[in-house]
């Protein structure tokens, strides 16, 4: 079959007028028919449609084609479609060649009919030349390990873990913090229903804990991921809690006696925690954790611990896991206004953030649910909220945080107003973005309650001697500058990528977008897939979104990943590196160049040779370029295949 004379069919897509309107598709098809080995050409209205594909398959049968070239949009979206179409009709999918004459031709030369047509001909000639040299490749597959890794145990990660666990798959749920629950555990209430956040999250946390298939690995971090779809090798660092979690009962006696007082992260640094502490009352697992950096070594906790759980000499443990699929749900952080002192934050006591407000409002928070201002612990009467702090701001982040900050301000103003009707509330906004279900209704409720909305971006924040904050803002609806004196100012801080996202992106080889969040495979139609097969992304790791959306995302990764788990095997690309042992001198350059460990030198002395672990190869081809003897070739991107394209960019005038 490899030595068969190429019989190439070229199909030129009009894509409606997307291509047909800007270049001469029929001329391109006619030209293609003049090229060597091309035995059939056809112009299709929409090659990707059922009808277009039927035309390809009819062409294959009628003209006994063994190679197909489609000139249409882009292989990035449509190559799988046409490969499958070819395969069905008996043409090896790797003997299909894609020529991009839409995205990279008709759409970018819209005012140059002749130039675009000429370029399309060149591109088709290049594609046909390459097609001629394409070899059939086997589509192989690899087994898919039935264990699952979920990174991050916020609401998206927990949901994914529950779904995987309920299906019967063994799940490793790795959380860097000492408890699962994520950001949502810290909110007081959730919009638009004003449900108590921990009250609805608590049962889900317990559901995770009770699920026999979920291994919660809290206070742990994924430090390395090797391997490939179905066969990931994961290294997890279990950070020492300095106590035996099998013995600790979470009774809290240790934290009672610990003399070291530190700001409580869970309470946004309002209130204190000890050097040894239970993360929060509903923590899962309900275990203490010792903050060794701040421990003074007094051993009071050891004496107080009746169970004898304290282990001062505990060491970090690195554990290796094997998993088939991965859900990444590392979440987000709130924008930090401290470095730039946005709106006086960090300069004036009575400017706080939304998250700080949440903890003050929370009955289990540091003030028992009394919102007080930091300067004098007095309950404020007039409270202001500035939206879009760190969002929609060319100096910080351009993007909108999904409408989440708008809703936080609306909810919090409403809650405080309901709790203390004598209070007054101002929300300073650019646009109110109450988009999702029930949000607009919540916005209306806040208005009805008397929350005042001032459209304008504050230009100046000053502090008075009594600690009051004055917001100077152009009320853009009234067209006048107003000064609003507040007892307390709350900054509606936006959502930013989690501080660990860059490292996580590197570990998993996932690209990040301009906004800093991880990139989905397709922004509309593959929203939880990634460019790395077998790795899925859920929740705010892929951009700001609210709880309902993040939860659905978690389930969506379970839905997508289970396709691989349930079939038990995953197809792998045929474009891997192959070695010609006759040419190889076992110099070992490839061993160093390959980031995936595909190559290993085996044998000794005269028997030394390079062993290629094809399943590890991701098909970048870097090794081929490095190989000094030409012993390595990348299937489907062989030197002569690429060179055929290079040479066919050009032609002699008289040809």
């Amino acid at each position, binding site marked *: 079959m490899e030595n068969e004379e190429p019989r190439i069919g070229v199909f030129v897509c009009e894509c409606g007028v997307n291509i047909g309107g800007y270049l001469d598709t029929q001329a391109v098809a006619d030209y293609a028919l003049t090229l060597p080995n091309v035995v059939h050409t056809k112009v299709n209205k929409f090659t990707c449609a059922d009808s277009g594909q039927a035309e390809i398959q009819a062409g294959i049968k009628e003209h006994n084609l063994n190679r197909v070239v489609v000139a249409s949009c882009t292989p990035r979206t449509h190559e799988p479609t046409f490969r499958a179409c070819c395969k069905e009709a008996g043409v090896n999918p790797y003997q299909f060649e894609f020529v991009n004459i839409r995205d990279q031709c008709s759409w970018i030369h819209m005012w140059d009919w002749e*130039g675009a047509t000429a370029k399309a001909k060149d591109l088709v000639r290049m594609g046909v030349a390459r097609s001629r040299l394409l070899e059939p490749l086997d589509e192989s597959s690899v087994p898919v390990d039935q264990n699952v890794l979920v990174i991050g145990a916020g609401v998206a990660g927990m949901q994914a873990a529950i779904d995987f666990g309920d299906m019967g798959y063994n799940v490793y749920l790795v959380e860097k913090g000492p408890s699962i629950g994520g950001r949502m555990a810290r909110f007081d209430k959730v919009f638009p229903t004003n449900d108590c956040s921990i009250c609805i999250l608590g049962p889900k946390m317990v559901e995770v804990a009770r699920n026999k298939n979920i291994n919660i690995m809290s206070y742990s971090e994924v430090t390395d991921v090797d391997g490939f779809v179905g066969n990931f090798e994961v290294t997890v660092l279990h950070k020492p809690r300095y106590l035996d979690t099998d013995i600790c009962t979470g009774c809290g006696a240790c934290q009672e006696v610990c003399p070291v007082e530190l700001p409580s992260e869970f309470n946004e640094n309002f209130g204190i925690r000890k050097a040894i502490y239970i993360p929060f009352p509903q923590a899962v697992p309900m275990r203490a954790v010792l903050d060794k950096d701040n421990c003074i070594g007094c051993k009071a906790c050891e004496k107080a611990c009746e169970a004898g759980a304290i282990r001062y000499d505990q060491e970090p443990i690195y554990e290796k896991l094997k998993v088939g699929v991965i859900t990444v749900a590392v979440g987000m952080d709130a924008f930090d206004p401290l470095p730039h002192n946005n709106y006086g934050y960090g300069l004036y006591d009575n400017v706080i953030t939304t998250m700080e407000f949440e903890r003050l409002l929370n009955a289990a928070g540091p003030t028992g649910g009394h919102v007080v201002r930091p300067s004098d612990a007095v309950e404020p009467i007039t409270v202001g909220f500035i939206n879009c702090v760190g969002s929609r701001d060319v100096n910080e982040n351009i993007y909108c945080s999904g409408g989440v900050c708008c809703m936080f301000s609306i909810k919090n103003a409403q809650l405080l107003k309901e709790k203390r009707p004598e209070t007054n509330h101002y929300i300073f906004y650019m646009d109110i973005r109450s988009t999702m279900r029930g949000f607009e209704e919540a916005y209306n409720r806040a208005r009805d309650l008397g929350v005042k909305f001032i459209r304008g971006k504050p230009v100046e924040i000053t502090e008075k001697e009594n600690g009051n904050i004055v917001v100077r803002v152009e009320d853009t609806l009234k067209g006048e500058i107003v000064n609003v004196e507040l007892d307390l100012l709350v900054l509606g801080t936006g959502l930013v990528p989690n501080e660990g996202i860059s490292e996580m992106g590197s570990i998993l080889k996932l*690209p*990040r*977008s301009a906004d800093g969040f991880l990139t989905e495979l397709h922004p509309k139609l593959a929203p939880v897939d990634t460019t790395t097969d077998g790795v899925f992304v859920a929740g705010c790791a892929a951009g700001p979104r609210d709880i309902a959306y993040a939860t659905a995302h978690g389930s969506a990764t379970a839905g997508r990943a289970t396709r691989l788990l349930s079939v038990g095997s995953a197809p792998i690309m045929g474009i891997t590196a192959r070695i010609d042992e006759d040419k190889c001198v076992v110099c070992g350059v490839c061993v160093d160049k390959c980031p*995936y460990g595909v190559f290993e030198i085996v044998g000794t002395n005269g028997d030394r040779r390079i062993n290629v672990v094809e399943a590890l190869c991701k098909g970048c081809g870097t090794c081929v370029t490095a190989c000094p003897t030409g012993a390595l070739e990348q299937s489907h*991107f062989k*030197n002569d295949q*690429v060179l055929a394209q290079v040479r066919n960019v050009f032609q002699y005038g008289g040809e």
Partner: protein
Amino acid sequence: MAEATATGTTSEEWQPKIVMFCCNWCSYGGADSAGMGRFQQPPTVRVIRVMCSGRMDPVFILNAFLEGADGVIFSGCHIGDCHYVNGNYKATIKYKFLKAMVNELGLEDERLKLDWISASEGERYANVVTEFTEQIKKVGPSPLKPEGVV
């Protein structure tokens, strides 16, 4: 000579022919994004897709010049964003070597360009193409171009 206008546009001005190698994940995506955004650009570039800029074999580039390219761009993901860990970093090493080769062939420095373009940078892609085309127009047709080539 039915293909007389194959390299050209509607204008009579000389149009260079540029070969551009793009990695599959970033730069080829950037070229597509230029299309999706309808960022217009001169039809001077012929893109060849490879999986990674690390696959950029010097032989490809030298061949392109020997066949008649007036300019060559090779492009991959921004440093740090490589889909294959660091193939783009390895490409920079090739690039230094190639720069020297280009000079030895008697070609101007400006004919070879390395640029990182991400999949979302459609507009920048168009700008790179447009500016490089202008640059090549200034230095003129490649002295290595075999006679009769279009």
